[in-house]
């Protein structure tokens, strides 16, 4: 099952590479997924919430690394 997380990561990197969108494009869905899984946790759906949050965090990792490069490229 864990291979699915690598596939998601791979697809996200490819997506970012091809679509050439900024980090918000990926961080906003990450944040929304985080919100949903937080609500699910409050409601007691721990297992499903955890899976969703893992996906959210994969989005977040890709987004934050992208943000790091954006900051470097931006005029300071």
């Amino acid at each position, binding site marked *: 099952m864990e291979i699915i997380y690598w596939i998601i990561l791979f697809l996200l990197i490819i997506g970012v590479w091809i679509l050439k969108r900024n980090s918000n494009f990926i961080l906003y869905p990450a944040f929304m997924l985080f919100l949903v899984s937080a609500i699910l946790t409050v409601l007691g759906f721990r297992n499903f919430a*955890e899976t969703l949050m*893992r996906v959210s*965090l994969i989005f977040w990792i890709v987004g934050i690394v992208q943000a790091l490069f954006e900051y470097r490229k931006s005029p300071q």
Partner: protein
Amino acid sequence: MKLAFFLIFIIPLILVSIWFGEGYILGAAEAELPFYNLKLFADRTAWAWNDFQLGYVSSFTVASNPTWSFLAWFQNIGIPGFLIQAAVFYSLFVVSGIGIFLLTRELFPNINPLANLLSVLFYWFNPISLANVWNRFLYNFMSFFALLPVTLYLFLRGIHKREYKYIILVNLSLLMFSFALTSYVFNLLIWSVFAYTTFFYCLQSEEKSKIIFNIKFFSLTFFLYVLFNLWWMLPTFNLFSSESSRQAVTGNVFTSEGNVQTLQLLSQKLGNFIDITRFMHFGFYHGEGPAWSSTYNNWYIVGGLFVISIVLFWSILNFKKERSILYLGVLFTATLILSKGSNPPFGEVFKFFFEKLTFLQVFRNPFEKFSFLLQVAAAPILGYGIFKLGNSITKRWFKGIVYLASTLIVVILLGYPFFTGLVFTGPSFPNNNYSIGYRVEVPSYYQEADQWLNNQGKNFRFIGFPLGGEGITYKWTKGYQGVELSNTLFSTPNILFNTTGPYYYQVVDRLEELLFKEDNFFKIATNLNAKYLMIRSDINHRIRSMRDPKSVENRLNSEEFEQIKKVSQFGNISFYQNLNWEDRTVFVKPYLVEVRPSSLIDDLLLEEVGESSIVYQDISNLGLKNSVNTLILHPATKSQIDLNNVEYEFNISEDGDYDLLLDNNYLTKSNDFKLSIDGNVASSSAKLRDDNKIFYNKYFFKKGIHKLVFNSTTVNNLITIPQTFIMNNLNNDLSLEINDFDPYAKYFVIFDVLITKGPGFVFGLEEGSQVGERISLHDQFVSSDAKFTDFRQIVSTFPLSSHPEKGSHPEKVRFFLKVDPQISSEVMFENVFLGKFLEFSPLLIKKIKDPDTSFQTPSISYIKHNPAKYSVKISNANQSFVLIFSDLYNPSWEAKYEDGKIIDKHFMVNSFANGWLVEKGGNYEVSLEFAPQKLLELGSTVSRISFIGTLLYIGGGYLLRKRSMKNKLWK
């Protein structure tokens, strides 16, 4: 701003007033009770070797010595321990508060004081701080909690301001909190954060000069860190530099396989994002913590904690273009990923590095360690996020609500256990009594006993009974549970608990059984240099599965123990003197008895190991054959073929006649057996010897492997029970007496069973037969399932671990069978049999040569300079002899002649001690020194010079600046 600082100083004052207002010191877990006697802790950590227990390496704890010495000074001038502890806790809170305040301000200079204060409150009261730092109650964790924001602030300030003086300030902060450095995982964490900070600022810099400065700043900080900390680094790293010294300290306690298993188990439990993002330690808040901690699982508190996480993620998302948010955001995200360990996603990567780089295996509990970084990254983001959220609101009253709500969530929701003192309570007795919690009051008789022991001399140790593991529970008015307190309560070296250290464990694990089974136990005590035996009756032995102190007392008072007499009583502790004792700190013996494959402390009781001999196990091929008089062989392997047959395999290294000895303790009740050697029935001429061993016969063995099979024709059923019977909800409870129960033996139970109705049944061992006093020692549930259509044979063994029955009264242990009386059940039993596993403990003994009667023991005297150094004066040595030093064997102990020549034949004797074969006659001096101590002294000198040099550099720089200012003014 002033108000914020005022609160940073005043809130901790309120907290320590609540915690220490009643005048008790706090103690629990692995931290012991240092504030009861700080001087003892200062003494213990001053040397690379500690003479407590049987002696152990203390290099790891040397880094805590300046702290203990500093605090001991206050206790010496009469300040009570609880006040010093309160002051320490206050300081840690204030320092961590100022640290996080300044760190937040450094990263976000325009933040308002209220939001800045919020980051401080969150850092203090977040769930990680509660569970992993304060409730965990480890002083190095607390110190690291305070140090991290301060040192990170100074490091960042240096990078921002581009001033090298911050290198000194960073290192001074590390030196001041050197206590935190006793755990090398914290050293790794600090340097990981510094490395990340340097990398981040290099990555974000366009100017080459800035990049060069950052790298220089990092490198020089590290260089000065090494110089300042060489005093504890040198002896510690030396210990792990060779396999033999590492083995002598840790043995096989921490194996890579074990660490990987631990990592996976803890990652599965603690590494879920839905918990980590709320800063929650899953175990603590789901049953492992105090009862009140489960309140944090209520939906509204879960929701409240997610509000904090949402603010954090929202802040990173919206303000990631600001350098400081990006810096903290990357750190926060990286720490989140690391905290989950080997859990998905991408846990394979963590596991890969964990397995390949063994130094990373200190992170086998990743959440516990990385969560320190999680808090320090999150606190400033939270403060800034609230500040930005407030700024985005135009209506003043609504802005006020945002600040008020966030402060209330942090202070009331998270701070409640701190302000009520619940943070210092635990799940088990006595910490689960909220009026006690971690409060401890040591009875005054301990001080009297310690004083009495000090008056008896400084050249002995004592053994305390009952003997258990590392944990202890005391039944004092304000009781204690946690790590055993022998280091804290007594200044005389002692053996009061067992732990998994190599050599030590094997010796101490046998002591209590030998005390109960061998009338000449005093021989063991003398060889361990134990002048006194102590009985403590103020412990909760039942909780700790220890033997009842009363049964130890009865044993010591029995007539068989002529050599052991009661001499003193202090409250609930009593002392018995070993009349056979003579100072065995350093002594000499002429003869060696070689034991293979490994020696046991029990061997010292054999007749062959007389007054002039010592037991020696050839582990290093030193060529000592000429000094060996007798050879003792233990079986290389033992296997239980079936219930009636047990096989022992011996590896004979040389042809010859061997005496076969059997253990009388096991045989008195089951003499009915036959022996075959290599398949041939062996003849017997058994007789009991004075050392309680049975001489079975003398046999000739050729070099090679030989198998001895004992066949016991009658293995008795130890319970009286009908052959067939039925249990149901009317006849639901059967408790049977066990004949001749031996708490140190191993048992099996075997029976046929058919469950025709109901959920199943429970069987096991219990103590007591009266209603209200029955305590289950082991129980096993057999559940009925679809496959239960015919009789099934159940086989089980007791004990499941080593000797859990020790805690019981052996005469009260019973076998039980139970079905649930509330549920309609029917269970048929046949042939229920409880038996004892066969144990003969055979030994083969070969006499090699008669002792040399012309040998004259050289006379010796010694001076103990400190626990790590002794001088031994030897007079009238006329031939080779063995010099024995009765501290735990460690290859780093060195014996040297006056000319500095090392005595190279160093080996373990008497199953635990250091022995050297001294091949020099005449009168001379030998020094015994623990080698890492020299490194500690060398490191201390370098660190002192570096420290003084740094102070001179600062002072000189200050004077030069002052002079140039004056000159400018004059001009």
